[in-house]
């Protein structure tokens, strides 16, 4: 199984409540995905520099020391605020240089996401445990993409939890399984694209982000995804200002949407939408197979 949840708030006043509204959505999908959970939140983009969500498998990592070392080596100011295993690094250096420096100096660290608007958290544990560990309820922003995992395709580890990211301000969560991830990997590897896990979802994520880096708009990239990605999927995709939902041609995996004047909420099942404010008056529908649903924040 797996559960996916997404929320885009149309009313700016609700941005402060994004995390609070989303946590019960994730907890509601516990039975669909009890082994790991993750959340990507998009908020107002930084005017300068980039932010990086980092994950350390050791509990007592010296996050402040990382920022100091970065300054000592590269002479670029950096801030690194840690919360247990997770930290948010903010610096003006270009992403390629930061990734390379981290790889060389802290090879055990995982860069979960990079961009001007995205923060990302993922870890093993039930959705409730992970949400509490990283205080998801306090997060705010314009839209968010969440996932609760029941692993079918690769091991249960934090880096194989969803959302997956590629490039900057791009993430994807997946309910389902792809049948051609290795073919896609081989194709993308010849384009110089590097994979971090053996998970099938990573192939879809990197394929779509690669299409966008090659100049496609999100909708065109998704259309090419329909042609290239084989298997079962409900995908929820987040970019700096968009949230997109698609299902495979057989609609093998569930999804339901509740839309009001204030928000668009998406979940694998209605159970995760039932608590939302004014959901009784929402327009509730099931997305059609192989049709694109894209909302702008």
């Amino acid at each position, binding site marked *: 199984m797996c559960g996916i949840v997404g929320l885009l708030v149309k009313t700016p006043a609700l941005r402060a409540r994004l995390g609070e509204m989303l946590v019960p959505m994730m907890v509601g999908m516990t039975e669909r995905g009890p082994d790991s959970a993750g959340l990507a939140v998009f908020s107002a983009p930084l005017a300068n520099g980039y932010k990086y969500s980092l994950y350390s498998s050791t509990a007592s990592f010296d996050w402040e020391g990382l920022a100091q070392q970065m300054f000592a080596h590269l002479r670029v100011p950096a801030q690194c605020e840690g919360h247990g295993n997770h930290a948010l690094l903010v610096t003006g250096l270009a992403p390629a240089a930061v990734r390379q420096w981290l790889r060389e100096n802290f090879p055990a660290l995982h860069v979960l996401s990079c961009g001007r608007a995205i923060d990302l958290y993922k870890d093993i544990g039930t959705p409730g445990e992970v949400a509490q560990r990283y205080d998801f309820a306090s997060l705010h922003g314009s839209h968010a993409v969440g996932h609760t995992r029941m692993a079918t395709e690769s091991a249960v580890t934090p880096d194989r939890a969803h959302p997956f990211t590629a490039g900057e301000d791009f993430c994807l969560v997946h309910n389902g399984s792809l049948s051609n991830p290795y073919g896609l990997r081989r194709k993308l590897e010849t384009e110089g694209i590097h994979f971090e896990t053996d998970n099938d979802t990573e192939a879809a994520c990197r394929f779509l982000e690669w299409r966008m880096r090659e100049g496609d708009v999100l909708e065109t990239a998704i259309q090419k995804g329909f042609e290239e990605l084989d298997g079962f999927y409900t995908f929820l995709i987040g970019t700096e200002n968009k949230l997109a939902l698609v299902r495979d041609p*057989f*609609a093998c995996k*569930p999804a*339901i949407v509740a839309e009001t004047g204030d928000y668009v909420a998406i979940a694998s*099942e*209605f*159970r995760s939408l*039932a608590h939302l404010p004014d959901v009784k008056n929402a327009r509730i529908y*099931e997305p*059609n197979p192989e049709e694109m649903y894209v909302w702008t924040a």
Partner: protein
Amino acid sequence: MDSLSFDLAATPLRDLNRFLHKEAVAQGVRQVTVLHPDGAHNIAVGLNAPVAVEIEGHAGYYAAGMLKLGEVTIHGNAGTGVAENMMSGKVHVKGFASVSAGASAHGGLLVVDGDTSLRCGISLKGGDIVVGGSVGSFSGFMAQAGRMVICGNAGDALGDSLYEAVIYVRGRIKSLGADARIEEMTESDYQAVGELLAAAGFSYDPHEFKRVASAKSLYHWNADANQEY
């Protein structure tokens, strides 16, 4: 006591189903209202008592599955597999129904006022399904017996590999599945459609419907078919 209500926000679903299975008849309860269903799975599954169950909201997976006696009305949408393997009785979904509505139903009547998603009536074994809106792709796949009345449109591969079930469609059919064909309506077809529409509470003219049934070319193995199906 004629009626009773269960609030699933306060009472476990298991208590409701246990009551419906074991206590409703003994206590003479004829109507049960379910409040705050909020997408819970398996509401009123295996109902075998002459009770009217009113679900006031959206139901999750397999609502009213294996229904034998009684009537279940969902005043909202239904999740995957509503009325799956129903034996008799009636299930009425006032909103839309997700995938596999009425799958393998042996008897009874499933009415959906809105649309249904894919695979409505898959492997139908004798029940009747009336859909006020449209049905998704692969509906009626391998349906063996029973009738489907679709007041709206049908998606791809309608009635693929049908056996003896008959599908009546008022709107457009995106495509027919293997071995399904459109046939002439007969007087008994008009009568059947009229009766089913009346039972479901729709007032369309049966003359607006067309009949889809099996061409029966798949009934016998054809070694020369050369993958033509």
